[in-house]
């Protein structure tokens, strides 16, 4: 129980006056802001790796009959006499999906921003359990190392898709992969533990450590989203851990949980995986929705349209998220009777998403829109997420899913929600909170170039995939040239690959901006966006302990352009109420 001991305020302040070693300050820090930055570097690194795997995959898909440029430096088990091997392609798909979901996007949404923003936005001095927080980062490190190492062990990395469907994932004799799969399952267990510890921390912090006056309905939408996300993680991750451990036993000690030869049930794996997996995709979108709400409000200089509806939408998406998992299993051999109930619940979940989409548009309506880079990405998020969400409606309809299941139509959906959704919002969040994190502004010109390149290339990569999917191209195939019905799409595949290269390159433009601004960017003031939430009411970057004195909250989270406030168009949450007629807590 040693880890559950809280670090008191007193101690935090004491620490400030001790000269700290580099190790104490940056490596084993318990300051939530430092941990968030550690997570940020970590996840950006894995974003780069995951993207690189995608580029290799795309090359193969576009030109299956050509040698892989530079493939010569890879070992024979991956690329033989210049040609990529099918087993290596399968590893690439698997690890691309897994790394992006578990090591890039999820820890970036939660590890970085839940960590950074929750204490700052609710007016706390740190997380409830700072040492647990440090542990949740350090658990990710071996997970990442195992993942990277798995490429270089005998048999290569895991290769049964990020969904790890048994029996393929459990039978080295059938997949050819033994150690790689084990490494990845171990990594998954570590990631699970890390995110459970994180969730405990975030939930406790939000419940118990809000500053005076920070009532539930004065919390910024980001905090709401991250809070509900943490609950999803808390309840969904352990199920994946349990299932992953059973799979690990099937793989290593000869049990047969998911192997029919021993009476086991392959479909049980799918139920457990998707019981986790669907909540997981909402873990990947809810925080993004939170950031977007905040950035759009600040960028439009207007309060969020329908704040309460937004909160209830988050809650109902999360709740419904637990009852729709079967929509991944319509063609799996699951009892068809379950199909109808899963269709209905899946379609139902589009309603709160619609509420959110229209409320974002409502926030922009009659606003005074400041299109800084963060705002561009946030608006881009709304535009792209809508496309991804709408393509989800096709699959939710069971009969249509018969045809499009496991085709590139699904791949298009995945990327519109995960890249056009989560990653767009994350880019927005990075530009928006960078000044707070590092005390410097990112370069706006480069940022805008990055936005437009990303938007254009992104759509060139992923929009045509809908068409490729309609033509019937299956997912996870290494070479489509053997299929008569896929002859007409090869040019499109090549176009997609060219665009993907452009997309990846724009990522490096961003990387340059990021690192350059960290050192050379314009110095940031405390509140460069004239925003209202608490984190902007303390210096950039905030000191250890966050506040000179604990803030007291008097207003709702997004009071922009209040008619009673003169000479500025925003009203910070902690500004004394005598500035305006008291705004109700509920607004």
């Amino acid at each position, binding site marked *: 129980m040693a880890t559950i001991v*809280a670090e008191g305020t007193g101690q935090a302040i004491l620490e400030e006056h001790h000269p700290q070693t580099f190790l104490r300050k940056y490596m084993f820090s318990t300051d939530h802001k430092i941990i968030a930055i550690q997570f940020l570097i970590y996840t950006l690194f894995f974003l780069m790796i995951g993207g690189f795997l995608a580029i290799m995959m795309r090359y193969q898909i576009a030109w299956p009959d050509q040698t892989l440029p530079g493939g010569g430096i890879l070992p024979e088990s991956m690329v033989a006499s210049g040609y990529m091997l099918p087993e290596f392609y399968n590893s690439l798909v698997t690890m691309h999906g897994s790394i992006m979901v578990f090591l890039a996007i999820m820890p970036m949404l939660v590890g970085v921003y839940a960590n950074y923003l929750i204490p700052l936005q609710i007016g706390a001095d740190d997380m409830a359990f700072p040492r647990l927080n440090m542990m949740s980062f350090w658990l990710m490190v071996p997970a990442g190392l195992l993942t990277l190492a798995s490429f270089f062990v005998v048999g290569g990395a895991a290769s049964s898709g990020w969904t790890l469907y048994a029996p393929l994932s459990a039978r080295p004799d059938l997949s050819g992969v033994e150690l790689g799969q084990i490494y990845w399952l171990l990594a998954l267990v570590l990631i699970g533990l890390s995110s459970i510890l994180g969730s405990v921390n975030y939930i406790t912090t939000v419940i118990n450590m809000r500053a005076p*006056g920070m009532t539930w309905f004065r919390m910024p939408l980001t905090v709401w989203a991250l809070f509900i996300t943490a609950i999803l993680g808390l309840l969904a991750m352990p*199920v994946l851990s349990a299932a992953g451990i059973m799979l690990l036993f099937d793989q290593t000690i000869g049990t047969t949980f998911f192997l029919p030869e021993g009476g086991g049930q392959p479909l049980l794996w799918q139920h457990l995986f998707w019981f986790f997996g669907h909540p997981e995709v909402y873990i990947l979108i809810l925080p993004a929705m939170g950031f977007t709400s905040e950035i759009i409000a600040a960028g439009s200089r207007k309060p969020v349209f329908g704040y309460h509806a937004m909160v209830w939408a988050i809650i109902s998406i999360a709740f419904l998220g637990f009852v729709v998992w079967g929509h991944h299993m319509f063609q799996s051999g699951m009892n068809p009777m379950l199909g109808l109930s899963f269709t209905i619940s899946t379609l139902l979940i589009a309603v709160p998403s619609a509420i959110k989409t229209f409320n974002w548009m409502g926030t922009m309506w009659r606003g005074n829109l400041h299109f800084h880079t963060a705002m561009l990405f946030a608006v881009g998020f709304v535009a792209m997420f809508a496309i991804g969400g709408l393509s989800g409606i096709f699959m939710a309809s069971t009969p249509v899913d018969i045809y499009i299941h496991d085709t590139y139509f699904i791949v298009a959906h995945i990327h519109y929600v995960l890249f056009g959704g989560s990653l767009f919002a994350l880019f927005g969040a990075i530009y928006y909170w960078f000044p707070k994190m590092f005390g410097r502004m990112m370069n706006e010109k480069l940022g805008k170039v990055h936005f437009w390149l990303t938007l254009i290339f992104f759509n060139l990569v992923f929009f045509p995939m809908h068409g490729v999917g309609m033509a019937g191209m299956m997912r996870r195939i290494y070479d489509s040239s053997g299929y008569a019905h896929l002859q007409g799409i090869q040019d499109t595949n090549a176009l997609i690959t060219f665009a993907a290269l452009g997309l990846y390159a724009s990522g490096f433009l961003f990387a340059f901006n990021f690192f350059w601004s960290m050192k050379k960017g314009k110095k940031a003031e405390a509140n460069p966006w004239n925003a209202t939430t608490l984190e902007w009411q303390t210096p950039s970057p905030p000191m250890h302990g966050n506040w000179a004195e604990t803030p007291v909250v008097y207003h709702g989270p997004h009071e922009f352009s209040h008619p009673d406030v003169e000479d500025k168009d925003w009203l910070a949450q902690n500004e004394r109420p005598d500035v305006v007629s008291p705004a109700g807590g509920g607004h």
Partner: protein
Amino acid sequence: MAHAAAATAGRAHERGLDVYTQKVGMWIFLCSEVMFFAGLIGSYIVLRFGASDAWGEPGEVLNVPVTAVNTFILICSSVTMVKAFAAAQEGDQKSIKIYTLATAALGALFLGVQGYEYTELILHSEWQGSHGFTPQAGLYGATFFTMTGFHGFHVFLGVVFLSWASIRAFRGHWGPNNYQGLEVLGLYWHFVDLVWIILFTIVYLI
């Protein structure tokens, strides 16, 4: 734990749960534990439904009397745990020492009996005509060892924490102003007991 109470009080906060932070944190952590065991138990139910012929009758392979005694041991450790907590609240230093130590010892005893049970099963039992009941002995063996094994692992962690709490007890650490650590540890320990109550019933008796 010395500054735990002070730390919470020192933080000006909006009315939360009216419960100190460590306790809230532990309950939330237990929620995730519930889901973890639900994953295992849910799989057990499904697998058993799908292949009920692969399961033995109660007492056929598993030694119910020994495990019943073991269950009793765990229940006793729960009562000593709660007694330790009560003693801390009252400041009865002698009882604190006795009860924390007893809890740790009973936990260790439970593990010992489980180790004995495992050894007997693996080395000296018969199941479906083959010698030894192991994790490889079909779904019955696999689910049995996975579920009881993970429970045992939780008991083991509990014993480690309890030993640490006992050492602190002997240093006079716990008392009326400082019982939160014991309470939080107690929550974990009782939860492990609670899981065992369920496991004992569905794995051994049904």
